[in-house]
């Protein structure tokens, strides 16, 4: 409908010049009013510039390269290498620590599974602390991908659970249930994301491209397990506590305003190592392995213990299991 073309508008302009000023605004009966309007507009613009002035500090933190960076899946190996180098340099500048950012691919044929023995877990929270350290979490709020619920015996209703218990554990009438990302086979968070910033990898790990996420937090609303964490502010980590062994899709220091979540320590587990939370667990309640390997420990548990998953009725099909002795 808004058809316009150059020669027409120039003709109009010419017509305008011949009969006086082109701008209708200047043709108003009162030139004072017009001047006031122009002044008002100029003043408004200036005020707007002043109002949004805090934004001018941002270009220091967001480089042009970062702004233009493509989605992880569209980066060539070469581009990835350059991105990693840039991120390493940024970490050095902002956190004063030399780190290596790697990007181990999924191991072909492996599908990760995690199981927790609820008869063993005593709720001491060592896993949370290990997660905090391993994954370069914000120290200010003791961030962690894991939350341990103290549940009342005789009920599986989380309504009767709490994460903020503060007494020696275990209590007689309680059991303890750590919850972290369940690495759903059918993850609602992935469905929700409007820009495909989060997806499920071949080994079952659901990852986030922290440089593609727009921070809409729809995935956080969609996740039924409170597994996702948003970077409300830039994470604070003292240089000597920064874990230098970093993965692009896992524990590298996340930028402000983006979403993150448990990634089964993929920078470790894709190299064959156990996740940090498992190694930290003093009760041995945690068990990790390859679901595709029939002889794996995790498969022994699935076949020999009474196993359940959380909120099975939602159809998320977790790769994270709970069992009792």
């Amino acid at each position: 409908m808004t058809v316009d073309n150059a020669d027409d508008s120039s003709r109009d302009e010419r017509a305008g010049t011949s009969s006086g000023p082109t701008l209708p605004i200047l043709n108003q009966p009162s030139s004072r009013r017009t001047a006031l309007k122009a002044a008002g507009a100029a003043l408004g613009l200036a005020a707007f510039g002043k109002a949004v002035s805090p934004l001018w500090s941002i270009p220091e933190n967001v480089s042009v390269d970062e702004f233009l960076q493509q989605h992880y899946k569209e980066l060539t190996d070469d581009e990835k290498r350059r991105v990693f180098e840039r991120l390493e340099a940024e970490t050095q500048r902002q956190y004063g620590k030399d780190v290596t950012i790697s990007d181990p691919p999924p191991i072909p044929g492996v599908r990760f599974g995690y199981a927790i023995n609820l008869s063993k877990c005593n709720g001491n929270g060592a896993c949370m602390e290990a997660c905090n350290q391993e994954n370069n979490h914000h120290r200010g709020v003791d961030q962690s991908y894991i939350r341990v619920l103290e549940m009342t015996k005789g009920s599986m209703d989380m309504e009767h659970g709490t994460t903020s218990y503060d007494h020696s554990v275990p209590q007689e009438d309680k059991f303890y249930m750590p919850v972290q990302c369940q690495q759903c086979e059918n993850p609602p968070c992935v469905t929700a994301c409007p820009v495909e910033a989060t997806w499920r990898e071949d080994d079952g790990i659901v990852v986030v491209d922290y440089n593609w996420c727009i921070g809409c937090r729809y995935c956080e609303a969609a996740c039924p397990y409170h597994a996702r964490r948003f970077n409300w502010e830039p994470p604070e980590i003292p240089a000597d506590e920064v874990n230098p062994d970093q993965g692009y899709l896992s524990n590298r220091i996340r930028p402000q305003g983006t979403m993150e979540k448990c990634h089964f320590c993929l920078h470790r587990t894709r190299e064959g190592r156990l996740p940090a939370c498992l190694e930290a667990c003093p009760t041995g309640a945690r068990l990790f392995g390859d679901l595709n390997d029939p002889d794996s420990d995790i498969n022994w548990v699935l076949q020999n213990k009474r196993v359940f998953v959380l909120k099975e009725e939602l159809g998320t099909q977790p790769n994270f299991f709970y069992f009792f002795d």
Partner: protein
Amino acid sequence: MPSMTAQKQTSLASPDAIRSYPRFLWWGLGEATNGGLGFYVWMFVLTAISLVGANAWAHQVAEGMIVTNMTDHVSWGLYIANFTFCVGLAAGGVMMVIPAYLYDDEEMHKVVIIGEAVAIAAIVMSTLSVVVDLGRPDRFWHLIPLIGRVNWPVSMLTWDVIVLNGYLLINLHIVGYLLYMRYLGRKPNPKWYVPFVFLSIIWAISIHTVTAFLYCGLGGRPFWNTALLAPRFLASAFVSGPAFIILVMRILRLTTGYAAPPGPARTLIQIIRVAMTINLVMLASEIFTLFYTGGAHGASAQYLYFGSHGHYGLVPWIWTATAFNLVGTALFFMPAALERGSIRIAACLLCIAGIWIEKGMGLIIPGFIPSTLHEIVEYSPSLVEWKVTAGIWAFGFLLLTVLLKLIATVFTGDYEAGPIRGPSSGQ
């Protein structure tokens, strides 16, 4: 202004007058910013509030979303609440078109264009509400099809972004075209706008349905996960939209003399009566299911209406909304509501405020409380959030004022050097 008149007539005289559409827009802007002292004070205040909002938002972008009171537990707050309401307003604004065309209600046509203008302002407001909610607005381009990488057709949010923008374009076209034709003194060619009007009716329903699907598609949030959500959204949109239009018509009549006959307003009131009743019935059946069955599904409703585990953050909000809605509805059913007067205005104000709370603080926030792990983290908006939201509303009103001013000017023929004073404009 002789020169102006001459100039316009030249351009109108040319057969391809449509080509001066940009000129028309420019002229319109000039017209729309003319007014008396009251008008300028109004515009000044709105601009000031918008600037306060812009400033608060800039701080939020620079310092992080930590300046809001949202948390990992309540990850959406006032912004998304306001977004939901504005989408309803936008949808409701256009649903008025339905009776106009369905029953060929001639008088309604004068209201329809107001509805479309409200829709445009509301859509801009809802888009802004989403933008300010983003943690990384600098990455907004990731949402743009072809340049970015959109998760279509799976993600409901992608759908929402697409339908909202489509809706904005459709309404811009309709309003722009009708105004332009009127300005030219031509009779609008139905071929150029009627299909779009019908499209926009369907689209109006779709924007609000998709917005409801955004929430009710989440299995992990029992409070939202109800099939009634979309119908409820539509019903309440049929209330807030018309109520808003009635208010706008009143203001227009008082300030510009652009008046519609009393008929359309009566039709609107009838619509409101029916829609509000349906809305309340659906709300009641929702509440019945939640409380009578009890259990985890009712946890959020319990928190919302009566508080839970010693937390009562939303209780005052929801009872205020309930009272507003009930009193507003009662007022609408009074015969006096059919007449111009304070009863009608009070009813509109009460229902708008009631629905704003019910769909915002009363729907979005309790979806997160208790959290998916049944933790209770309460939420009340921070000052920054209030400022930004006020800024968005102020900007919306600014836009609406300009649009209405233009509409009033063009339709009342109240512009100097009006190009047409011929029989064609007098229809």
